[in-house]
């Protein structure tokens, strides 16, 4: 029986194309809060 062709690679989805800046997770994160009504 012939071997079926390998499935095509999954397309790059929009979800995998998130902004590079969001993939950079800093080692340290600080928090600041300001009331600016």
């Amino acid at each position: 029986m012939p071997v079926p062709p390998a499935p095509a690679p999954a397309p790059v989805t929009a979800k995998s194309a998130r902004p590079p800046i969001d993939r950079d997770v800093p080692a340290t994160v600080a928090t600041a809060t300001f009331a600016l009504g």
Partner: protein
Amino acid sequence: MRTCVGYTGGTKPAPTYRSLGDPTESIQVEYDPTKITYARLLEVFFAAHDPTWPSGAPQYMNFVCVADPAQEQAARAAAAAVAKRLGKPVLTELRAATTFWPAEDYHQKYALRADRTLMAEVARWELTAAEFRASSAVARLNAYVAGDGTVAQLERELASLGLSADGAKYLDRLVRTFTGRIACGND
């Protein structure tokens, strides 16, 4: 850097925009201290309002929420520098940080939400509401749409914002039409 608008201070727990009580509209910033300092954020905060005016109703007060002695020391130094520069007392208060309640989703990145072109770009990322709120790219787009940001800043980071070629061109044109009310530094 991540930004989230919400409510803090006051006594009412879990405030909402329609049932706010005595908490105050505020913003929480998560940042990488190796890229921007708390002192720089204080400079931006003091430049974004007139600290010599007394605050009004609780909803619209101005104050710094200090979370620890280091923040308190930096905030006092920043307020003193502003007072010296202006030659007037600074009325913006320092208060101990209390619970920060994120505002409703429709308040987050409010300026960006009105820009259909950039919102279509963001839609490609299929973010949940929490991811939308926490996205650095979304925060930056919101700032650019609001006129806060420079051409130089955009040129440095445009490739990292994840926009399509058309989206990048659109944002570039948009930023060049603004003079930028407050440049938020390198970060």
